[in-house]
């Protein structure tokens, strides 16, 4: 139980650090960067749930991110809906689209699923790009309002928006935590490890995959809607493959299929990208090979690597303990034998 206590302390310290961050870092740029990273993290948690825990690579998630973002923009600006109603509607609409895509896409497996979702993602991109009258096409979509006030809470300042996004992130992490350690989460992992075995055990794989997919789309659309209200400008390139690639990089660097992975990976990669800003368009020259090398030599990512290291260490400790116990028993036995012999000879 000591491990659990320790983990809880760490978590509390991290949350406290996140809450105190804007108070100590007066630099508005860093607050902005952190807010954006939090938004990415929410989307990466969505991807992690499906790719990491359920074992299906969906390449349409950037598309769902964009649908969430554009739905919020269109509902607030063109339809004139109140912000929070539009916010909820944007997430629901994207999730609904996710249900339909999932129903069809999940009939396919492995490569077919990846290719299918890649095409779905591209269709979403093309529609956003070409449907000028609704989305503004390549010129982009501007004038999205900042989050509206809730009672006495106002979200007009960057710091207030930081806390809003942090709140959503914590909710997502909490849901993920509850889910992963529940029977449902175990079921997803069982599907990832062997779908046929899971099916044999009486798990309805289709139902579970769909639930996991839809929830993962929901998280991603939430991130999209937050993105729209925070950046307040949208271009079709947020639906593009490169955004998908960013999500994947964050997830893999942090550790696919781990709870801490999305946070660790997103923070590290966005921080590094800031350092490499002089490269701008060419940053893929570094991140492309990094991703490929990572998947060859270190596929568990940072969080996954630490978990494995810990597991190995505790295993080693257990073995050592057993060994010392065994040798102690052996020594005791031989001592007893000797004393018996002396007694006989004596």
């Amino acid at each position, binding site marked *: 139980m000591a491990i659990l206590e320790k983990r809880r302390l760490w978590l509390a310290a991290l949350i406290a650090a996140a809450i105190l961050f804007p108070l100590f870092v007066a630099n508005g740029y860093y607050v902005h960067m952190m807010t954006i990273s939090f938004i990415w993290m929410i989307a990466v948690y969505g991807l992690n749930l499906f790719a990491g825990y359920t074992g299906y690579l969906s390449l349409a998630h950037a598309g769902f991110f964009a649908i969430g973002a554009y739905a919020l923009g269109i509902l607030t600006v063109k339809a004139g809906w109140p912000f929070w109603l539009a916010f909820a509607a944007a997430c629901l609409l994207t999730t609904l689209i996710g249900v339909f895509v999932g129903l069809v896409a999940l*009939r*396919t497996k492995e*490569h077919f699923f990846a290719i*299918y979702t890649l095409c*779905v993602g591209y269709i979403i991109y093309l529609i956003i790009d*070409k449907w000028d009258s609704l989305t503004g096409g390549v010129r982009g979509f501007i004038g999205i309002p900042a989050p509206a006030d809730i009672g006495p809470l106002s979200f007009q300042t960057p710091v207030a928006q930081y806390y809003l996004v942090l709140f959503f992130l914590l909710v997502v992490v909490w849901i993920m935590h509850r889910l992963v350690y529940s029977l449902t989460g175990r079921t997803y992992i069982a599907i990832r490890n062997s779908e046929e075995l899971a099916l044999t055990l009486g798990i309805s794989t289709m139902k579970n995959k769909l639930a996991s997919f839809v929830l993962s789309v929901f998280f991603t659309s939430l991130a999209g809607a937050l993105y729209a209200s925070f950046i307040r400008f949208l271009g079709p390139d947020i639906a593009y493959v490169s955004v998908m690639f960013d999500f994947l990089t964050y997830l893999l660097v942090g550790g696919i299929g781990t709870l801490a992975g999305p946070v660790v990976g997103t923070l590290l990669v966005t921080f590094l990208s800031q350092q490499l800003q002089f490269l701008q368009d060419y940053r893929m*020259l570094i991140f*492309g090979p990094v991703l490929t090398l990572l*998947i*060859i030599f270190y596929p568990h990512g940072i969080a996954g690597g630490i978990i494995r290291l810990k597991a190995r260490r505790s295993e080693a400790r257990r073995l050592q303990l057993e060994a010392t116990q065994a040798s102690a028993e052996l020594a005791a036995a031989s001592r007893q034998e000797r004393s018996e012999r002396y007694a006989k000879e004596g």
Partner: protein
Amino acid sequence: MELFIQQLLNGLTVGSVYSLVALGLTLVYGILHIPNFAHGALYMMGGYVTLMAMTKLGMPYGIAIVASMAAVGLLGVLMERLVFYPLRNAPPLHDKIAAIGILLFLEAFAQFVWGADYQTMPTPYGDVVTVFGFTLTIQRILIIASAVIIMILLYLFLKKTFIGASIIAMAQNREGANLVGINTNKVAMLTFFLSGSLAALAASLASPINLVFPGMGHLVILKAFVIIILGGMGSIPGAIVGGYILGFSESLGATYVSNDYKDIIAFAILVIILTVKPNGLFAKEGR
């Protein structure tokens, strides 16, 4: 009617290019069972190498194409050795992610070295000829003719030569091929070489009509995936037929439906196919 036939000719040209790209993709899929998302990047590199060989080194078009086929083929071999070979026992998720990594690297590389501009490739075959009352450029005839010749040569190579037969053997059963003494490593490298060369050829032929730019491989590779799903993953005749079906439906769709949305046609076809048959058309039964 004249418009219709003109569009059929267009479809034949576009379909030839698609078929060549899809052939490379389906060969690799047949051997290694990985969807090579980086194949589009090979296509793009093919376009650039030909263009650079012509403009910077002053090679004639034909020789530049051969040089480009060799260079991109070797790039494919390098990819197999450095990335896909180490990943041969990894979960399937890993190959796909690694391929996406290569794709983005090569694109950034092209943009870094040759710039993001759209470039035109000069061709000595730009003249217009009139055949049976239809006008078309010699370049288009060249595309169709060379695609057909390459397809026949590839078919003969796979069916009539020993090395070709070993590729097919490996596609049928990797362990079995290994047991009868086929060096699967060499066959895998050869397949990647062929795949890269076919992509380079397709890009070099199509570039004088389209343009050369870092993102030129995106749509082509997605469509090639549609084609090999249409024709059956790993099937060579399927890739050829699928390529022409897609070429025709696109050129007719662009004329009679909407030019803006013609790129969606391919994906709509795919979505419909996979909705009805989740394992693709012509999926092998009993597996």
